């Protein structure tokens, strides 16, 4: 019963945030809508007993990623209103057709093929830090190390993109 109420409230909040993100003209409103959706999804993680993932969701997504987004929005300038005229004439109708057909495909697939896999008969999973760490550092330790490498490469790439100002081709580049 409690889970139903929580699901309805935060499901509506997630949908509202997502629609706000797509619809809002101002990118800051989009970021706020996305943040609302991410918090709602963190609540769903808690009600699915994924406690560690919920905390990581709030810290990484709602904290770090959205801060980065807002930083870039402020850097680029929030006063620039987006020109909403569409240059490709059939882009919008085609996009709507694709979205609707994708939704229909999801509904049909959900009705046809729902239960896959065998239910593990052990105790119900509880995603505590201990359980996730046990799994992560025993079975998945090599992928975990590789994600460390990936993060280093990403940080180095971001620094390289931000650091090198190609001043030498300023004359030949007409777009500066």
């Amino acid at each position, binding site marked *: 019963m409690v889970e139903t109420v929580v699901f309805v409230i935060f499901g509506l909040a997630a949908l509202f945030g997502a629609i706000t*993100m797509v619809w809002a003209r101002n*990118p800051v409103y989009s970021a706020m809508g*996305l943040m609302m959706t991410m918090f709602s999804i963190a609540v769903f993680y808690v009600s699915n007993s994924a406690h560690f993932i919920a905390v990581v969701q709030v810290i*990484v997504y709602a904290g770090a*990623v959205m801060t980065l987004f807002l930083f870039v929005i402020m850097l680029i300038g929030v006063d620039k209103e987006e020109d909403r005229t569409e240059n490709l004439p059939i882009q919008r109708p085609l996009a709507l057709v694709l979205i609707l057909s994708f939704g229909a495909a999801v509904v049909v697939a959900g009705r046809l093929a729902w239960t896959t896999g065998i239910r593990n008969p052990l105790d119900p999973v509880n995603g505590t830090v201990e359980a996730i760490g046990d799994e992560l550092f025993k079975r998945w330790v090599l992928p975990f190390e590789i994600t460390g490498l990936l993060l280093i490469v*990403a940080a180095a790439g971001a620094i390289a*993109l931000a650091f090198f100002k190609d001043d030498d081709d300023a004359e030949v*580049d007409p777009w500066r």
Partner: protein
Amino acid sequence: MAVTPGWYMALAAVLFIIGAGGMLLRRNALVMFMSIELMLNAVNLTFVAAGRELNVLEGQVAVFFVMVVAAAEVVVGLAIIIAVFRRRQTASVDELTQLRG
């Protein structure tokens, strides 16, 4: 009425469709990027719900790895948007018609 994992799957599907729609309909590179994040979040929700349904922890481990990849992707993607903005003074993908240096 109990909330079965199917309800979470349905909500995640709707969120994914909204994200895909934002990706197709918007022309602001930042909002398109946020739509990608929304789609990743929707898929993460299906991972957790399916892990609960099948009673395994691997769903949550998969979410952890998706989050790491998404964080790396956001860092590089926003750096690219900044680099493009420094050259062209715009974040609209329609203006970026000439892919040259």
